[in-house]
């Protein structure tokens, strides 16, 4: 069941600019992200990732299937999260099939840094196979 991390707010055009939720599945913490990750909203994702790592969650999967927009600030937050979990021999994988989001990972070469999967179950299976 998702914890109460939903701190999305109404924005222009009545859409939610960022919603965050997290839950445990098979010992891995799943972070569901919905909306836009940009210079304005990225600090909230960063706070969540830092909080999770500080609370001992070092195996993370960020589900970006409902992310509508991601810029370099958001990339910085994800990389920051990756560096934090790696400091604890952990992992941070991504779930994303949207071409518009995958493009920025390709442009920046970060497809070589993150494990990017088509579904949460695929990411969990891949992570468990490496244990």
């Amino acid at each position, binding site marked *: 069941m998702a914890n109460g991390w939903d701190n999305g707010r109404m924005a222009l055009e009545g859409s939610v600019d960022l919603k965050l939720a997290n839950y445990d599945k098979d010992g891995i913490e799943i972070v569901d992200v919905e909306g836009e990750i940009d210079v*304005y909203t990225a*600090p909230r994702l960063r706070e969540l990732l830092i909080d999770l790592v500080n609370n001992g969650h070092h195996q993370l999967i960020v589900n970006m299937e409902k992310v509508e927009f991601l*810029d370099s600030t958001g*990339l910085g937050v994800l*990389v920051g999260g990756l560096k934090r979990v790696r400091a604890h021999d952990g992992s941070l994988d991504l779930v994303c099939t949207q071409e518009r989001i995958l493009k920025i990972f390709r442009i*920046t070469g970060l497809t*070589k840094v993150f494990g990017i999967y088509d579904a949460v179950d695929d990411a969990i299976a891949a992570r468990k196979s490496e244990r």
Partner: protein
Amino acid sequence: MATVEVTFSPLAAHVRTARLVAMAVARRSGVAESLLDEVRLAVGEACSRAVEAHQARYPAEPVKVALSDEAGRFEIEVINTGSLAPGEAPGRLPGAAAGDLAGNKGQDGPAMPRDGGAVPPGFSLAVIAGLADDVQISETGGGTSVRMSWPLAGPLVAGPPP
């Protein structure tokens, strides 16, 4: 004169507004639907970069965005007060390839932006270079201009709707 000009105070919250305006004007100008995501990301990167520059040095000065459609291209110019940051050079774009980006080298080779939400100087410009096929960066009388353009797909839609 630009088709649309937007001036906003250097707050992160306004970057989304600038993106929405740019998308609307690009669509109306005739930019192909397949390019609109690139336009949205590129103008967002340029505005984020400008906002961060102003917040550091010129918090009272507005960021300017000019949108125009001329000579078969849709052009966006984002202007901020002040010169380029160290690591950013006029007329020289950082490489968009991973190994060329500034920042920490990851274990696997590609560069990584720094932690804390900040990215290394030139990172935003590198992303823009990967998105727009025509990018010009210049310092102009007390300001910095990031100009980028995309081809228009069809005839301009300048008049009122039928």
